[in-house]
């Protein structure tokens, strides 16, 4: 029995080691080296890149990334909760309604982002429609700002919130809500004091699944924010392309990883339950 279990674990363990742990180890070495003239790294070992991470300029970008990811996650909870609740109570149509959430999700992330570019740009559908109705003369600056980025993030990651939330809500006994009602709770009370606390595990799981990709987002700020919205992901990518500063890029990457690990650690410790 023991041997079979080890055999089952072996492929995953080797992939995690070779394609996850070792690459991060390489970044750790790079982060302590000096930048090469044409990208890459050179031998003199130094802590310079780590000090640059603490520069107020870069700390500001980190703070802004947290804010954008936080707002997006919050909007996902607000939109995802009623949707998941609706699906979990729709009886035999459950699968259909769940598929309807998954359908846009199955589409390439880029397509979904492009769809908003198509709607929001100066010559896009919304501006064209408003102009031909005579409501506006000049196109509204809908694209290339922070709200466009947040909109894109919410649109992109909302299914990540709905799925875990749905599976939590589905397992709840509907009799619990009925009991709350029978015992005199108003609908709003049984929602806030029975349903919401019981669905907390789903909200937490969904929030983590949404917050993390939002925090490290690179594509959405790039396409919907134009050049004006620099977040951590964009900053990292720049170091490995235009700026050719691999040590600094590695240091920010690992700093971001550390932030993510702290969040994961707090989450695991508070509830005493693993993520998987």
């Amino acid at each position, binding site marked *: 029995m023991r041997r079979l279990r080890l055999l089952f674990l072996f492929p995953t363990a080797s992939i995690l080691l070779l394609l996850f742990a070792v690459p991060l180890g390489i970044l750790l070495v790079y982060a302590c080296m000096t930048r090469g003239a044409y990208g890459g790294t050179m031998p003199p070992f130094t802590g310079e890149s780590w000090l640059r991470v603490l520069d107020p300029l870069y700390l500001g970008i980190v703070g802004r990334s947290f804010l954008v990811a936080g707002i997006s996650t919050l909007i996902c909870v607000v939109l995802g909760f009623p949707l998941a609740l609706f699906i979990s109570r729709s009886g035999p149509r459950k699968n259909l309604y769940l598929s309807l959430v998954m359908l846009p999700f199955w589409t*390439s992330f880029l397509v979904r982002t492009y769809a908003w570019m198509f709607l929001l740009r100066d010559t896009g*559908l919304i501006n064209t429609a408003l102009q031909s109705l005579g409501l506006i003369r000049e196109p509204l600056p809908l694209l290339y700002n922070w709200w466009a980025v947040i909109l894109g993030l919410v649109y992109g990651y909302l299914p990540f919130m709905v799925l875990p939330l749905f599976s939590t809500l589905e397992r709840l006994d509907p009799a619990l809500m009925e009991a709350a009602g029978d015992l005199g709770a108003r609908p709003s009370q049984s929602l806030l004091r029975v349903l919401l606390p019981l669905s907390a595990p789903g909200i937490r799981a969904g929030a983590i699944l949404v917050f993390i990709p939002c925090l490290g987002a690179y594509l959405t700020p790039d396409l919907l924010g134009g050049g004006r919205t620099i977040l951590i*992901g964009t900053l990292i990518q720049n170091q490995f392309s235009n700026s050719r500063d691999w040590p600094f890029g590695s240091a920010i990457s690992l700093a971001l990883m550390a932030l993510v690990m702290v969040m994961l650690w707090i989450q695991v410790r508070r509830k005493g339950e693993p993520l*998987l």
Partner: protein
Amino acid sequence: MKRLLPLAATGIYAFLHLPLLVLAVFSVNSSRFTLWEGFSLRWYQAAFQDQQLIEATVNSLLIAAVATAAAAVIGTLCAHALWKKDAPIITMSLSLSLVTPEIVAGISLLALFQWIFRFLNVHLGLHTVILAHVSFCISFVVIVVLARLRTFDNSLEEAAVDLGATEWQAFRHVTLPNLMPAIVSAALLAFTISFDDYVITSMVAGVDSETLPMVLYAIARRGANPMVNAISTIIVLGLGVMILASERLKES
């Protein structure tokens, strides 16, 4: 609340679907601009004649199929092992790899491959993309399958063993058949994530392994192009059919 909930759900469904629906409608618009002119399939024609798009689509399908198949097998075995007894280091690493920002995963994999290529005469290509995709798909498979296994009664396998089955036979003939819907749904999730991925892929792809998201990204950045509306519509329809098939499979 009984009336409010369907209303809210309808609104959110509209938010999720209208942008793609609008895209589909304008994919058959004969005009190059966002004003409706008349029905035309010219943008589909243009897309199907675009050699770069076709090659990229083939690459994307190939990568997603291979990576999904590998991740589904590896992840299912791992989930079964973790269900029997937790392995804290594996669980922790899987959770961590799941929450690793894509840009960090992409850059660290690029660093690894470039370091390896100093010693071997190999270059970035489909194989590096597939390896990267397998590594990030496994955690999703483990999560879905493990969640399902936790609803299972362990005594079924124990009974099979008591009746003379080996551990492997118990897994193969008792647990695995019951697990199939979860594995399929996990594989579908992995397929979408693999097919969707741009950030990690663009880091570890070579010149001959451009994927569909990479081509779409390049076109989208250049500005409005109705051909993208046509490709998007095909993707939505193609994958929509796949979902419906998988739902059918799950119910049977």
